[in-house]
């Protein structure tokens, strides 16, 4: 058991700078955030992931949907070095007659150098710049599968990158809507109090008692079938954000109620400030840091939710490509044992979710620079 000395000093004594009161709240928040190494690390990794998603075709040597029957379930290609030049061996595909699975044997008599900035299939970068440049590639007939290939011989690396475009972004608007809605309803409820507060709270309780899975299933089946899978999923996240704002509304309400009794609010009211002015200049800036944190922490759960829903068959389905869809291929024990590289998308899920949490945690600590 720790002694009294082992209990660390309260945070304020460690971080309080002498110029508190002279710098803006934002500067204080940034300083405090930068102190937390894990959060900065999480933020940098996330920026990296979003950049990779944006330039996905540049990083993938092959299109994400290109089938290749000569390379079904091909394992990740081993890379050797000749001097400083990376090379790969050619492979030949043979059918194992006893198990009826494809067996790949490396044939290192002929080496294929890995080339950088090669010309390959064409794509448009950021939707506007036409290009056919790729970071790396090998001369055909050899194929470089950095992350292996799936059951159809599609490049797992290209699919993971393509999936990240959807998985990392599709929940964002839904989260944004529920955050805005939650803040508005929470502020109204906390500021007005009385009958309005009571009504909103009962309504929130009603929404909170509603299981979301049936709602999800009903919407998934009720939305027009001619819609693309991704678009349908996107609409569902938006509709569901009309239900999931309740938690934040409660927290904001609590905060606003606390601010209402504080002296500076009273002073503002006595000075003749309108309720809107009090809310927007005196209350929301105080609550905004908390709101940002809730939003940051809601995003990773939307990413995780996508994998769970896709697993259950309620989320996205092929031909859409998302991390959840890719992990549908890795649901059986045999897959994990025989083609473990199909689990690579899971690593991306875990990294993204963990980094978002690091980021949110750092923001939470930084959110209240006076504590």
């Amino acid at each position, binding site marked *: 058991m720790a002694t009294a000395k082992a209990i660390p000093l309260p945070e304020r004594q460690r971080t309080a700078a002498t110029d508190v009161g002279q710098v803006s709240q934002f500067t204080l928040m940034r300083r405090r955030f930068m102190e937390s190494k894990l959060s900065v690390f999480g933020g940098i990794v996330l920026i990296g992931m979003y950049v990779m998603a944006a330039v996905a075709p540049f990083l993938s040597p092959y299109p994400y949907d290109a089938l290749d029957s000569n390379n079904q379930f091909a394992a990740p290609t081993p890379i050797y070095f000749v001097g400083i030049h990376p090379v790969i061996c050619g492979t030949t595909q043979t059918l194992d007659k006893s198990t009826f699975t494809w067996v790949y044997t490396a044939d290192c008599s002929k080496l294929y150098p890995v080339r950088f900035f090669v010309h390959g299939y064409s794509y448009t970068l950021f939707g506007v710049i036409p290009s056919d440049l790729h970071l790396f590639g090998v001369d055909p007939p050899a194929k470089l599968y950095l992350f292996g290939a799936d059951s159809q011989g599609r490049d797992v690396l290209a699919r993971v990158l393509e999936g990240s475009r959807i998985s990392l972004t599709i929940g964002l608007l839904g989260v944004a809507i529920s955050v805005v809605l939650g803040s508005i309803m929470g502020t109204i409820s906390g500021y007005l109090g009385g009958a309005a507060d009571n009504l909103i709270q009962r309504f929130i309780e009603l929404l909170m008692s*509603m299981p979301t899975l049936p709602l999800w299933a009903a919407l998934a089946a009720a939305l027009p079938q001619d819609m693309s899978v991704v678009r349908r999923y996107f609409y569902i996240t938006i509709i569901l954000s009309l239900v999931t704002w309740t938690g934040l509304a409660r927290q904001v309400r609590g905060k606003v109620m606390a601010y209402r009794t504080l002296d500076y609010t009273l002073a503002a009211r006595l000075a003749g400030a309108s309720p809107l002015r009090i809310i927007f200049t005196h209350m929301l800036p105080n609550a905004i840091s908390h709101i940002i944190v809730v939003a940051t922490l809601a995003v990773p759960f939307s990413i995780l939710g996508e994998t769970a829903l896709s697993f259950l068959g309620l989320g996205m389905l092929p031909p859409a490509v998302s991390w959840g869809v890719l992990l549908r291929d890795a649901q059986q024990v045999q897959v994990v044992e025989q083609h473990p590289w199909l689990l690579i998308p899971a690593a991306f899920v875990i990294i993204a979710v963990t980094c978002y949490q690091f980021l949110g945690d750092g923001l939470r600590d930084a959110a209240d620079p006076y504590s």
Partner: protein
Amino acid sequence: MVHYILRRLLYMVVTIFFISIVGFVLIQLPPGSALSAKIAQLRALGGDLSQDQIRSLEERYGLNDPIQVRYVRWVTGAIHGDFGQSFTFDAPVNSLIWSRIGFSVLLSGCAIIFAWVVSIPIGVYSATHRYTIPDYIVTIIQFVGVAVPDFLLALLLLVFASQVLHTDVGGLFSTRYVNAPWSWGKFLDLLQHLWIPVVVIAAGSTAWLTRVMRANLLDVLNQQYVQTARSKGLTEGVVVWKHAVRNALHPLCMALGQQLPALISGEVIVSIVLNLPTTGPLYISALLNKDMYLGITFLIMLSILLVVGNLLADLLLAWVDPRVRLE
């Protein structure tokens, strides 16, 4: 106190009433009647069904009545304990759920206990040893623990159990015990199968509770009454466990309310991966196959568990902390 509970119970009845209406409409929102699947199934089994047979089926289940009539009929039945018929399983909803709910409660109950037993001591240790190496390790494990998808954890544990421990996994019993009557051997066999799903179900909430426990205890440890307790000369153990921890348990009590419905819905994915005879897979199949009476029964059951759980959590909170006033 009695007044408070009565008022809450009244709210609960109103809430459930509204949810049952919304849920009833929702379950029937998807196009295609619940019976069409059944008819297709019958066709696949035994050739053609005549129009008359279809009509008689529809009449038997009352599918041609307007929705409000069906709603009233279902609610009247439900109050008397009859929750209607499942189309996909061709059995009363009642018997379907009752035959599986025991294992669900067992699994999730064990998972909740596991999560509490593990997370409280670790959270306390992590908070009292802040910024030490073990604290950092615990913190990172927590973050990753929340981030690992359930089914992945279940798969990895399955592979681990079969490759490393060489145990027979999947299901709740070994084949020779499935249909055997209860015995000591069967019980031990159950325990051997139980730990994987329990660990998987508990993993996420354990990680989360540990983090909450740590954060709360850190807040509480900075308060003056803790300093007072220390300066009175109490041992650090007493200060932490009797004075601080007790007040740091609030959010955990609150979370308990949310965990009651998780008894049913928390084990869905794990049960599918591990092939367990619990209510979770039934719930999903009802939603996917538009099996409306089974679906609506689950929906109502989950909402009731949630509101009851919240009430219990509030009462527990008032009992743990005398400062909390129930108004």
